[in-house]
């Protein structure tokens, strides 16, 4: 065959070879089919480890019980027993090292998440005692009158 056919062909072959070499170095070695099949499982295997290494922020109430037994006991015997400490105090991270203290959120909005009166007949929201925030002692933090850990009305003076 003639030169004018071979020469461009060589160029194309060199380009292809270049891309294959580049691909070899750029695509991570652990790239391949690691799941059920190619359609759903073609990925970098190391990414699973990356996700598993994400630090945990919410520690759970058992963790708090060790150092705050009074609050834990009050909370556990109350109508708020189901609520995790960290729902109101924020994630613990490495508390008490970092942060040294957790947030004391005395905002009314925290309590209104559950206690604002809504009309939701087909949900358990209707079983929680609701108040109208505009008429129930407005502008005063709820925790001035109610104990957030043990809000039971029988215990109120």
């Amino acid at each position, binding site marked *: 065959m003639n030169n004018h056919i071979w020469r461009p062909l060589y160029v194309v072959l060199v380009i292809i070879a270049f891309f294959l070499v580049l691909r070899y170095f750029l695509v991570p070695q652990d790239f391949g089919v690691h799941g059920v099949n190619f359609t759903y499982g073609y990925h*970098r295997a190391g990414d699973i480890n990356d996700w598993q290494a994400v630090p945990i922020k919410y520690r759970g109430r058992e963790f708090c019980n060790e150092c705050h037994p009074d609050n834990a006991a009050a909370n556990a015997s109350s109508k708020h027993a189901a609520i995790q400490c960290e729902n109101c105090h924020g994630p613990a991270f490495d508390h008490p090292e970092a942060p040294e203290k957790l947030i004391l959120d005395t905002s009314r909005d925290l309590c209104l998440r559950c206690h604002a009166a809504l009309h*939701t007949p087909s949900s358990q929201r209707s079983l929680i005692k609701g108040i109208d925030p505009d008429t129930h002692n407005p502008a005063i933090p709820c925790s001035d009158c109610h104990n957030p850990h043990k809000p039971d009305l029988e215990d109120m003076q």
Partner: protein
Amino acid sequence: MRCSRRDLLAMALTTTAAAILPVTAFRFLSQAEVKVALADPALRWGFLVDTEKCVGCGLCVKACKLENETPYDAPVTRTWVERYIITKDDQTHIDSPRAARDGFTDPRIRGEAFDPAEVTKSFFVPKLCNQCDSPPCVQVCPVGATYQTLDGVVLIDRKWCIGCGYCIMACPYGVRFFHPVHKVAEKCNFCYHRISQGLKPACVQACPFGAREICNLKDANDPITRIIMTQRVAVTKDEYGTKPQVFYIGLDRNVR
């Protein structure tokens, strides 16, 4: 054309070799690879949402955002809660202010008040990624950055994602979004870092009312799996054929 016996043999040989060449592209799988391909792993994560128990406090959304470092004030989130108000004239009113991060504190929807006598049903529906068995979002990824793990969770490779957004368009549930900080696709992964260590996802732990539960669908003794197997549960948008693995108790026909 003349053809000697020698030519014939040579030609037959080259043709056969050329025909076989593509077959060499196939390769024999190692024992481990076969196991993976046929795997029936003992673990498949599933999720149960009890919409009757949900009170719309939004503590799950708050916990999710803080646990997974989703920018707190950006209008993106891995999970959210919707409120439905259905009135006697068969109108469905839906809202999810700030994805319900701060709960529902206003009886009105977008300023519109509802006469309790006019309301037939009103309830809350938490939404999250369905970790579908046939995830369309994974099929469309052009670079292999999103995939299904063997325990059924769909993950996104943040180092490999190019942020093209195909998966965000492909998800019929709208659970995927563009992460404003990492500039990649993002979605709920059942808190993969927590469930891999035996902890519950942040939203499950945060829910005071047990409206959200996680389970191993392959374990018939798992109490939550038993509920899914023995009670009446539904999935959202079944007609898309994605085989969602988040099951709902008390789903309504008005839920979209």
